[in-house]
């Protein structure tokens, strides 16, 4: 993991003190709300339905057990004893006081954490493949480039008042676990013809009101140029992005308006001016940072096939968990373990302070004191000895963190929704819980197989519903909560946006509609097709037919 040096520490400490000064100015009235709001957003502080919400960065999803314990302490001391992990690999607290925020930020700074630019019209937390460094299919660990880009983007004087927010995602593997195609900039590692690793640069992807899959602006670029290339993209966006209408201000709108070819022309012209300048990544600096991402002290071990098979045969529950939550590691004898924050009846992505402390202890015991946040609102231990898997599973069961559902129907991504968020039209969490209950048996989960269900409480799409195999969008219809369904979305390297099924359904009818959709899939699937495969083969008609019967169409017409 990256560790701050004196410059990183000074920067974060100074930002905390600057924010303290700004908060005092706000409380005394020297700064009014209109002028203060962008400043507090640039430190991750929203005003939500119930109180202030603080969003803390977990840079490219990586943190240490020390940091997790501090997050638990913040939850206990300044909040109501829990936090929420988000689709951008961050953590959110819902009951924060403005007056206490500078102290909270100081406590975070002491463990090398911050909330800088987790909101605001600037470059946000850069997210990455949560298996970075360990995945078998990885071309190169992207974390060194993530950290370099993070530093480049933080408190960048030119790009702190962009037309709108700006999000980057990075994957070092061909299998895209970071949804790069639906980010403002997505970086996907490839080997060129000479076998050298470099980035495909994808631009203008996004969700929200006008979802769009990003377009490739550059097929391949050497990693040493990635900062200057990002600067060129940002500069063109900063200068030409729309400023007249906040709903049309993202880079995806500009790329669509100009066309990717024209946009590329502008970016490449700008990039040619700066490519050999100060932003070309100094190999010594890359080496310095890369040293922090060297593999931990792995022991030399064999894969424990026979032992694990025996344990799995003896225990169906352990077998189910191994199948869905444990992933092959590139180093023999180790496994990647997903920690599900989606137990039946729980709030997706939420974790209590007590359980954060417990998970921190388990990270120390089983995963070199480190863990990840995935964009699916779950946690990951990336380096678990196979000999420890059964013990770890038992420990996670005690904590209700061993639900065998990663990537399956009850691993539902849900934004906080109208229970917490001032932007929402409808509540996401109760819907997610109801649907999750239907799929709570592991037999059912395994029968249905890979199925991503995403719930967003409004068009801002923080639940990433556009790229869910089944997407659920909350809308306000005459003061009541209705939900529109979409089918066929995907956030991986074959990204697609879901197709709208039809008019919104009232909340009470949604879980049953989902059941009928899934049952239809089970009837129609061939061989080992996933839901997404069947949908792509048979299309919308069979699904639409079961969602809408005479009762619901009458309600819509009224």
């Amino acid at each position, binding site marked *: 993991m990256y560790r701050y040096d004196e410059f990183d520490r*000074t920067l974060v400490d100074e930002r905390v003190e600057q924010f303290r*000064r700004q908060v005092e100015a706000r409380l005394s009235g020297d700064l009014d709300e209109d002028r203060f709001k962008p400043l507090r957003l640039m430190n991750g502080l929203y005003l939500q339905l119930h109180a202030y919400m603080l969003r803390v960065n977990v840079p490219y999803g990586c943190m240490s057990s020390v940091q997790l314990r501090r997050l638990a302490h913040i939850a206990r001391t300044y909040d109501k004893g829990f936090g929420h992990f988000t689709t951008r690999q961050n953590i959110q607290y819902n009951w924060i006081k403005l007056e206490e925020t500078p102290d909270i930020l100081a406590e975070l700074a002491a463990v090398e954490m911050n909330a800088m630019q987790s909101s605001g*019209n600037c470059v946000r937390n850069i997210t990455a493949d949560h298996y970075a460094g360990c995945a078998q299919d990885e071309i190169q660990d992207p974390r060194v480039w993530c950290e370099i880009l993070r530093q480049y983007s933080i408190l*960048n*004087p030119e790009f702190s008042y962009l037309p709108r927010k700006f999000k980057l995602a990075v994957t070092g593997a061909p299998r895209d676990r970071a949804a790069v195609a639906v980010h403002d900039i997505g970086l996907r590692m490839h080997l060129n013809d000479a076998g050298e690793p470099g980035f495909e640069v994808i631009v203008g992807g996004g969700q929200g009101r006008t979802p769009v899959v990003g377009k490739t602006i550059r097929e391949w670029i050497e990693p040493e140029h990635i900062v200057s290339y990002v600067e060129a993209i940002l500069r063109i966006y*900063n200068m030409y992005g729309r*400023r007249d209408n906040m709903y049309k201000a993202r880079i995806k709108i500009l790329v669509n308006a100009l066309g990717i070819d024209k946009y590329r022309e502008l970016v490449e012209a700008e990039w040619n001016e700066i490519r050999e300048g100060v932003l070309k990544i100094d190999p010594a600096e890359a080496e310095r940072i890369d040293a922090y991402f060297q593999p931990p002290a792995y022991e030399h071990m064999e894969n424990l096939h026979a032992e694990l098979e025996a344990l799995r045969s003896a225990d169906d529950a352990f077998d189910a968990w191994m199948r869905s939550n444990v992933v092959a590691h590139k180093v023999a004898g180790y496994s990647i373990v997903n920690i599900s924050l989606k137990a039946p009846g729980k709030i997706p992505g939420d974790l209590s302070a007590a359980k954060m402390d417990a998970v921190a202890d388990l990270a120390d015991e089983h995963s070199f004191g480190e863990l990840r946040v995935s964009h699916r609102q779950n946690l990951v231990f990336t380096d678990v000895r196979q000999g420890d898997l059964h013990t770890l599973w038992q420990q996670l069961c005690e904590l209700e963190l061993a639900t065998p559902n990663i990537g399956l129907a009850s691993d539902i991504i849900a934004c906080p929704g109208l229970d917490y968020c001032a932007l929402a039209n409808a509540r996401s969490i109760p819907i997610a819980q109801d649907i999750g209950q239907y799929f709570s048996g592991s037999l059912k989960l395994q029968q249905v197989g890979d199925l991503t269900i995403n719930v967003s409480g409004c068009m801002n799409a923080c639940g990433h519903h556009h790229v869910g195999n089944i997407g659920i969008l909350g809308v306000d219809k005459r003061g009541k909560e209705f939900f529109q369904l979409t089918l066929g979305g995907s956030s991986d390297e074959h990204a697609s946006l879901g197709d709208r099924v039809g008019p919104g359904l009232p909340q009470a009818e949604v879980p049953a509609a989902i059941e009928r959709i899934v049952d239809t899939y089970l009837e129609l699937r061939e061989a080992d097709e996933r839901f997404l495969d069947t949908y792509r083969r048979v299309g919308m008609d069979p699904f639409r037919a079961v969602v809408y019967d005479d009762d619901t169409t009458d309600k819509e017409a009224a």
Partner: protein
Amino acid sequence: MALVIDGKLVAADPFVRIAAGAAVPANGAVLVTLATWTAQADSLAQRSDPVGVLLGSEESPAALADAVDKLQLIALDFPTFRDGRAYSYARLLRERYGYTGELRAVGDVQLEQLHYMERTGFNAFEIDSDDPVRDLEIANRDFSTWYQPSGDRRQAATRLRSGVRPAQDPSQDPSQDPSQDQEA
């Protein structure tokens, strides 16, 4: 409205702002719109008194790329502090087109944006404040280090880490005084 140039309060603006379409007086320092400059560049360039151009936030500084040697003032407008286009314009003027004259931020200019303005190359501010010099001091005190090089040519952390001194740094202007490598 107060004017601060190079950290000092200036009692009276030497430049007179000439509205779009208005006639340019024969004498005196004038700040004209880009449209006026474009229409009268030759005669304005021949003035013995200083000439400045005010760019609106939608006007790219590329229009002045070839004129930087002829101008003593370029003013960039911030119609609202949320409109960050002029930060890019400032950097281009300083770093791409080599402008060395007074670069002034006008419009919605206040304390909390001064630091970024200085970093991108502004050295003058038209600011609605009771004590603009104090505002600048507060803004400068906020940060002693930063990650990125930018229009003010001050050293960034990435350079300082590798111990690069300005004389060795190929990106630095070799004519710049190497003893001014760091600022407080």
